[in-house]
């Protein structure tokens, strides 16, 4: 059957399986991705079916994982690397930024770097320190990297395969608190382009732009606002590098108001860049300044405080009200 109801986790697993089947050069690498199937079981069963040469349990060394993936890509392989949790990507940050991102440019286009780095990210699961961070800005800021995050099962299924097919390195952020959300996946569909935004809900009064785990919150906020007679459009950005500014502009030219929502700290975040660019592009269309809702300039708090730290329904609705009040 072409359309299946899957969790995001299962959609990712199916997607990896399909990629392994379709191209013998695709490899899965990471800590615990083999026998255990990953701590979130995203790679469950893949080593059993594809063997240890293609689904590779690695030493616990993130720089080593990414650095050897670069070497494998130079040899013609297409490694899909799993970093176990967001906060653990930093030991590999040097390899990602100084090597992976620049190899294509410094080789004057000779070398392709088809490496995907999957990172379960963001909060909301009550984890300990370093297990709930949203570092996407740090990657989106780096030329040479592409950064995406699906918010639903269909995108999880398709975007991961598109990322693997890309000849550019893609940082693939998976919203870990949404892993168990179910959605319809049409495995025979023609998917949206990897870096195109998607209108998740149409509206006419204001645009909410979000990605990954915040799309669901924004959809809930839009539903709540509708009960108060407000028509809220929700854009699922899907890609943080590149950002689909044309898609955002089209929505803002219609609604004339924009709020950007993400879990990462607001300061110098993706929302800041969107606010700046949309202000330039839509200066005469905007009825209110572009507002941002997100994390604070503080370390990610202990789990008992994360509900206060993370943007929830009320904080998003508050921003909607503030925008509409101009």
């Amino acid at each position, binding site marked *: 059957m072409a359309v299946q109801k899957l969790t995001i986790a299962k959609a990712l697993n199916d997607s990896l399986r399909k990629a392994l089947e379709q191209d013998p050069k695709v490899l899965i690498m990471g800590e615990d991705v083999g026998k255990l199937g990953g701590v979130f079981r995203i790679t469950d069963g893949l080593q059993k*079916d*594809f*063997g*240890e*040469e*293609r689904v590779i349990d*690695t*030493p616990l*060394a993130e*720089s*080593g994982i*990414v*650095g*050897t*993936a*670069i*070497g*494998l*890509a*130079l*040899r*013609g*392989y297409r490694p899909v690397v799993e970093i176990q949790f967001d906060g653990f990507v930093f*030991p590999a940050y*040097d*390899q990602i930024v*100084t*090597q992976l991102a*620049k190899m*294509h*440019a*410094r*080789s*004057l*286009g*000779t*070398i*392709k*770097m088809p490496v995907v780095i999957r990172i379960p990210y963001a909060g909301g699961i009550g984890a300990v320190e370093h297990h709930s961070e949203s570092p996407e800005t740090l990657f989106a800021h780096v*030329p*040479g990297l*592409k950064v995406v995050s699906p918010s639903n099962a269909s995108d999880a299924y398709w975007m991961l395969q598109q990322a693997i097919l*890309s*000849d*550019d390195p893609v940082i693939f952020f998976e919203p870990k608190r949404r892993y168990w959300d179910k959605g319809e996946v049409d495995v025979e569909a023609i998917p949206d382009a990897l*870096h195109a935004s998607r209108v998740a809900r149409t509206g006419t009064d204001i645009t909410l732009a979000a990605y990954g785990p915040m799309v669901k919150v924004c959809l809930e906020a839009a539903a709540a606002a509708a009960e108060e007679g407000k028509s809220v459009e929700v854009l699922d950005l899907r890609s943080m*590098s*590149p*950002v*689909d*500014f*044309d898609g955002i502009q089209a929505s803002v030219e219609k609604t004339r108001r924009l709020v950007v929502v993400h879990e990462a700290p607001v300061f110098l975040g993706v929302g800041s860049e969107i606010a700046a660019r949309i202000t330039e592009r839509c200066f005469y269309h905007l009825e209110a300044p572009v507002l941002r809702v997100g994390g604070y300039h503080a370390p990610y708090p202990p789990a008992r405080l994360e509900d206060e730290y993370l943007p929830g329904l009320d904080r998003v609705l508050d921003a909607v009200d503030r925008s509409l009040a101009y």
Partner: protein
Amino acid sequence: MTVESTAARKPRRSGTKRPAGAASAAKPAAATAKTHDAEPQLVQLLTPEGVRVDVAENPDVAEFAPFVADITTDDLRGLYRDMVMTRRFDGEATALQRQGELGLWASLLGQEAAQIGSGRALRDDDYVFPTYREHGVAWCRGVDPTNLLGMFRGVNHGGWDPTTNNFHLYTIVIGSQTLHATGYAMGVAKDGADSAVIAYFGDGASSQGDVAEAFTFSAVYNSPVVFFCQNNQWAISEPTERQMRVPLYQRAQGFGFPGVRVDGNDVLACLAVTRWALERARRGEGPTLVEAFTYRMGAHTTSDDPTKYRRDEETAAWEAKDPILRLKAHLLATGAADEAYFAELEVESEAMGKRVREVVRSMPDPDTMAIFENVYADGHALVDEERAQFAAYLASFEGGE
């Protein structure tokens, strides 16, 4: 589907071409200096005076000597020529930096034997991951020396296609490339190929975590990679005492593969030991660490001043071990070459130096719009937008493009 794991991989090579008399099985850690303070025990085949070491009287080198048993006097002259040409090129580049033609230069002066010996041990299908100082290895790989100067002049970040000569681009961040080499070697093993991979790095890079991770990965996946450390005694101004408390080659033992210390100023010994290590890799016996014990006679780069951090006596002591002079002494003593040969080589190297000067001075600056080229393989909307903005800005000037 079941796939044989890398660690359990059987020897992949049959019919390996080996010099007659080569040892059939390699033993780990042939050199066994006891402490850091002890005189380093080196694999040496040619003394600083240019005399071939008597293998019968030096059992430590018996394992390696067969790997150069096939070397003819023609080969010796070839190694000599490689070292002379490399030194001439290096000297020219240093001069060009002083003349303002290059922004920076990392001289290999003193390290010619380590680079030519190891470089000439490689087969065409082997793959090299250099640092930014492997000009001699590049020479052995057939990379046009002038192509090495683009990045130092500031016209590009590379200057050659790595796949043409299996010689990767120079890597500036120290140690990073040891992981790339390891990953590449993992791929070689997966492909069932019998080529080997060599990663160059320095004593300073040995302190980097990436090098330790490369050792770990290559050991557990039994990857066909040779780690070739040129211990030139100084990491800019930091001596080896600031990098390690035990001899570097001994570190390999803790990772489960052999380490060998070779006289890095002895081109024959470097050739033999590297061939030995490459053979191990080809046979599926995994990684080796080779520590070429040598000396950087010049500055780290043209930006530093070694007189500030090291003693003249130390440099003078190493001058006596010069790799080129010792082979010249050997060639003269054995009648393998005469003064006419050296004079001829001098003419050839001068011509090469002249060509390098001319090519560098005529290197064009890259096109301005190259800033936006090759940032991404598949394109990127932001790059497209900024390219168009910048082009419009340039065109806005009177007579603009």
